[in-house]
């Protein structure tokens, strides 16, 4: 494999921000009496190659580097950041962040102790060391495979991207942590066109994975899966509108649980009492076969974290157990205000943002129902192979999701493909209508979650399951 001879140059390694300098910055940040100070240093390199219309259409690289300094004082957060790493500029940044408090400096004596952290990433070869031409081979392979898959395939778009983020976090409680977070992803997107009918399909692999997980066999596999989906959806008819039972296929429907349930179980909403579950802890909010977890420790999954962006180790959190709401996802600030502990969920998009409670890998836990029995139990309903984009209000839990691949279920069997399926309803209602859950849990390659203007990599998953009734919005009116 072609790799660069030296690691890539980084100003960060030249900047000489040693322990003494970090301590000095923390002291300046606290000089107005702030209770807690934190320095977050980031250097991210990301690479992206796109192939479109039989051409490598884009080859891009980006470097984000900077320092964010945060001061907490009671319920208040002061945040300032700088992309100039000179000590003078950083001292000024620390001073500005500290202005959130007004008073005399409290005792600032502490020692920074470097923490040992576990590793949940599966990275042997850092992707930033692989030359772009090597990565381009994946795209060409996926492109030719997808085009050969079926005559009807009219467009192929392939994208490979990776990022390598080095972070250092130091705080006035004495924490000092380093982590290197690597993300990679390969996506194949195809369109099919036949006799005036159009459809599309996609497949992807992604995670906290090193470049050793990417090869031509994978590119072939993804291209064939994307082709399969597009060809399967070509004859799709308009979905019927109305109320139906649905079966969700394992693996690619977890987005539903992330978006429609998970966001309502984040600790900032719980503290502010603005989400539908804020007062439901220890109450039954779902049928007793429903258990939901958010787990930052799944090896190689896209949402996995050795530490969160406050230096708290990633962990597995049970949000719903046997139907009962067990708690919320917390960062340090919201945990402190709620008199509990951080759940390792304090995440931020970059040094330009302060951390907020976020999910990692969110999934419906495995149940006991046989997936075939689940399908057989539905006389007339909808089979959801994968869930696409959605829109959810965390206040009401009300959602709309599109379904890029779905089918009619007739007498317990999957029959014709359907287009334009929209799942509608609200999260709390759906939890009460989950009547069967299979044992076949699968975690997806994941995606990107947006909240309060911050994007973060996440993944999700689910076993086969049945929702006894849900509203389908479609173009066709029943009857």
């Amino acid at each position, binding site marked *: 494999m072609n790799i660069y001879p030296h690691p890539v140059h980084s100003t960060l390694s030249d900047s000489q921000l040693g322990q003494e300098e970090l301590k000095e910055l923390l002291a300046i940040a606290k000089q107005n009496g702030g209770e807690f100070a934190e320095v977050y240093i980031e250097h991210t390199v990301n690479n992206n190659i796109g192939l479109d219309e039989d051409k490598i259409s884009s080859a*891009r690289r980006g470097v*984000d580097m900077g320092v964010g300094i945060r001061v907490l004082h009671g319920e208040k957060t*002061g945040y300032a950041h700088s992309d100039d790493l000179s000590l003078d500029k950083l001292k000024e940044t620390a001073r500005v962040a500290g202005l*959130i408090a007004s008073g005399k400096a409290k005792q600032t004596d502490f020692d920074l102790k470097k923490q040992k952290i576990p590793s949940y990433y599966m990275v042997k070869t850092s992707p930033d060391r692989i030359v772009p031409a090597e990565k381009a081979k994946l795209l060409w392979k996926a492109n030719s495979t997808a085009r050969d898959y079926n005559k009807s395939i009219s467009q192929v778009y392939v994208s490979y991207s990776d990022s390598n983020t080095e972070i250092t976090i130091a705080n006035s409680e004495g924490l000092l942590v380093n982590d290197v977070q690597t993300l990679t992803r390969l996506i194949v997107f195809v369109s099919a066109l036949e006799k005036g009918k159009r459809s599309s399909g996609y497949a992807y692999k992604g995670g906290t994975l090193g470049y050793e997980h990417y090869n031509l066999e994978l590119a072939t596999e993804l291209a064939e899966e994307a082709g399969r989906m597009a060809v399967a959806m070509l004859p799709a008819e308009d979905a019927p509108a109305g109320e139906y039972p649905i079966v969700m296929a394992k693996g690619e429907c977890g987005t539903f649980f992330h978006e429609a349930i998970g966001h309502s179980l984040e600790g900032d909403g719980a503290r502010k009492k603005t989400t539908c579950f804020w007062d439901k802890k220890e109450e039954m909010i779902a049928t007793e076969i429903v258990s939901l977890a958010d787990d930052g420790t799944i090896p190689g999954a896209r949402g996995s974290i050795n530490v969160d962006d406050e230096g708290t180790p990633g962990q597995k959190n049970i949000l719903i157990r046997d139907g009962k709401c067990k708690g919320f996802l917390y960062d340090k600030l919201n945990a402190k205000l709620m008199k509990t502990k951080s759940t390792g969920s304090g995440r931020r998009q970059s040094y330009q943002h302060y951390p907020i409670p976020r999910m990692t890998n969110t999934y419906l836990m495995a149940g006991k129902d046989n997936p075939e029995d689940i399908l057989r139990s539905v006389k007339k309903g909808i089979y959801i192979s994968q869930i696409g984009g959605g829109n959810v209000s965390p206040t009401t839990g009300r959602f709309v999701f599109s379904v890029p691949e779905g089918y009619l279920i007739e007498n317990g069997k999957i029959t014709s493909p359907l287009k334009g399926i929209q799942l509608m309803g609200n999260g709390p209602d759906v939890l009460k209508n989950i009547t069967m859950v299979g044992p076949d849990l699968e975690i997806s390659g994941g995606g990107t979650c947006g909240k309060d203007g911050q994007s973060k990599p996440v993944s999700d998953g689910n076993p086969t399951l049945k929702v006894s009734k849900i*509203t389908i919005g479609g173009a066709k009116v029943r009857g």
Partner: protein
Amino acid sequence: MDYKKIAETVVKKALKLGADEAEAYLENNREFEVNVRNGKVETVKQSMTKGMGLTVFKDKKLGFSYTSDFSEKALEDFVEKTVQLSQIATPKPWNGLPDLKKGKPRDLDLYDPSISKVENNKKIKVATKVEKIALAYDKRIKNSEGGWFGDAESEVFLVSSKGISRRTKSSAVTFGTGVIAGEGDNMQSGYYGSSKAHFKDLEDIEYVAREAGKRALEKLGARPVKTQKVPVVFSRWAAPSFWSGVLSALDGDSVFKKATFMTDYLNKPIASEQITLIDDPTIPRHIASTTFDGEGKLARKNTLIDKGVLKMFIYDTITARKAGVKVNTIAQRYVYKGTPSGSLLNVIVNKGNVKEENIIKGIDQGFYVKGLRGSGTDVPTGNFSVGASGFWISKGELAFPVDGVTLGGNTLELMKNIELVADNLEIRGGLNSPSFKVSELIVGGK
């Protein structure tokens, strides 16, 4: 730092390393943001950021990189890698920098020097006051998502090897609040904010607060209705979302790939004669205006839909050359981190001459849409399907709040069935439309 000089140096260095053409786009930004909740400051954030995107063409191959690291060594690595990167791209005959007319951009008064002089305490007061008034608006309002105030200044430098060197400065200021009405299973949130280029132009605090309160209250008790075909009024709050779906189907490159249902409709009627849609980023002091776009082209006004007839698609320099058409629209960048792509900045749907209340009065049973979840238009097929909330119209009046329904149909049919356009156009953001009535549409519910 002398940013203009840095940009020039990077361009020169790229040419020296073998690039045929190079262009640096550099941004230098300052931002302030405060969030208060229940009368107390929660967060204050201040930032200074800079960054540069470098586009190079070598043998008609495109390479692009960005960096926020401006140290000498890092910049050298940056230029080298960008030129290297171009070599894996496929050459395309249409690749290359735009041919720009020299000349001075018009001064659109988009920068307010007074913003940086407003004291932080005054900004915090605005955020606190707007939340306070919204919370006091009605006793059913029980909780707050907070009040906010933010402002930003941005300076952009664009330097290209074709002899272009441009600079512009702009500002933005915003405040608003979000409150929650109701309790238990019947909670609804309402948000409202005001964003302008100049501090003095911000809307009245009381007005913004009341609008937020009103929005939370009016949704209380919202429920779905039965599936039925009725006249539908898209309010001026919901209409922009709808138009954004239509505009995504007008992307020139999608037309080239025949990937949009609009492909064959140039110079043909696509909407009711009452619809004229323009892009005008040249309105002075408007937050969605610009002096020059992401490619350095001077901003100008374009008509996309003229009395229902589609007049142009959306292109940037490269997609236009590829399609063999003249460049017309604005090209936008996702800050310095991306290359420009064809876009619209300040879309305005011309107003009609009917009062919105008279439109509602004329409907026996129908749906008044206040919010859409998404834009609804599926670009390849033109199928329209989207989640919606609003009010049920009964006997010419708004009868009760509705949520959890979908609107479904065909985008072209919907646009042709626009019967009436209201006179309530207000230019607030980048997508502005008056309310309009569609003669009939499927409202999908229970």
